[in-house]
């Protein structure tokens, strides 16, 4: 059972993932998100994974694909709030998500998207 929500914050799309994400959910999310980015010409995508306590290789690839597709649509993708155990699992699986931006919190992620000029 999962619930994902996509919220538009000015020119940034905030995606919150709650609970477990099945492969179908992940593909649906990728589809919806890419469409949304194209429609709203968003500048950035924030994916909040703090509610996720399980990330498998498929989801890792989906995140990577989302980042790639968004980059083609001129939007930067930042994954925020990854839990320690999830991070360790991903590293142990060898999924280091290269090229994907990361931040501790949604606020940090927004700062990152707004450029280094607004760094704390």
């Amino acid at each position, binding site marked *: 059972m999962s619930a994902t929500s996509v919220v538009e914050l000015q020119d940034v799309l905030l995606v919150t993932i709650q609970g477990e994400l099945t492969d179908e959910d992940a593909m649906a999310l990728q589809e919806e998100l890419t469409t949304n980015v194209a429609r709203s010409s968003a500048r950035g995508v924030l994916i909040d994974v703090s509610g996720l306590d399980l990330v498998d290789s498929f989801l890792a690839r989906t995140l990577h694909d989302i980042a790639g597709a968004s980059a083609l649509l001129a939007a930067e993708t930042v*994954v*925020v*709030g*990854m*839990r*320690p155990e*999830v*991070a*360790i699992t*991903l*590293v*142990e699986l060898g999924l*280091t*998500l290269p090229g994907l931006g*990361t*931040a*501790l*919190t949604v606020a*940090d*992620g927004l700062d990152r998207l707004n450029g280094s000029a607004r*760094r*704390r």
Partner: protein
Amino acid sequence: MTAGTGQNIRDRVAQFLKENRSDIERAWATTPVFTARRPADAAEECAELLTGLRHVIETGGEEDPSAGGLATVRPVLASLAARSAGGPSGSDRPDVTVLKGPLLRLWREQDLPEDIVHSGDLVLSNVLNTLRIALLEIELSAGTETILAQRAQLTELSTPVIKLWDGILAIPLIGTLDSTRGQIATESLLEQIVAQQARVAILDITGVTAVDTLVAQHLLKTAVAARLMGAECIISGIRPQIAQTMVQLGIDLGEVATRATLADAFGQALRVIGLTVCPDERGAG
């Protein structure tokens, strides 16, 4: 030998132990097992040991180290084992086999038929052998407990996560990093990154004696996991010899930032979070 005769022999031996208590205790007190003790303590321990052994023989449990009869002897054995500071192989380890000689001598000095003497010999030897096994078991389990406690202490000691500044954490790694300690260090660092909302984490390996491929791999994994969570990792305190070893081993830390000293790493961390250190204009000292 039938069970009936066996019981007769046991009763006979138990009776012998009871009647010759003081002689046996006196003989035992002069053996190396007890000479290190104060005479009063030694006498008390001898008496306890003897009572316990008699109980074991009466109940016929002389060949079973886990028998209930030995329960009465265990406190004495534990105190014997506690004195063996040198460990199982130490030269000062108490050896209860020295108790056998005096005991068998006293047994043989009695005026008894030969077959009873032989059977009694067997019973007494058996019970002392069992005693020795029980003592060894106690020593081994005491050693294992000590090792476990020390390992736990070491693990606790080795993983303090230090807050250097708002958003900057450091973890000084010390000694040899095996997989357990490394894993605990990683986990506590990542947990603290979340708890303290740290943007930069410094892994200081000044106190690490050797870096092999496994340790390097672990450092790298920690750094990547921290990056996935949105924090940057800096590895500091790489001594020249270690740097050379790492190059010779072909270890590549990739894009992880490295610095020679913790101070350099701290400076870099301050830059990352957008702070600078500048001299105080007022010149206060």
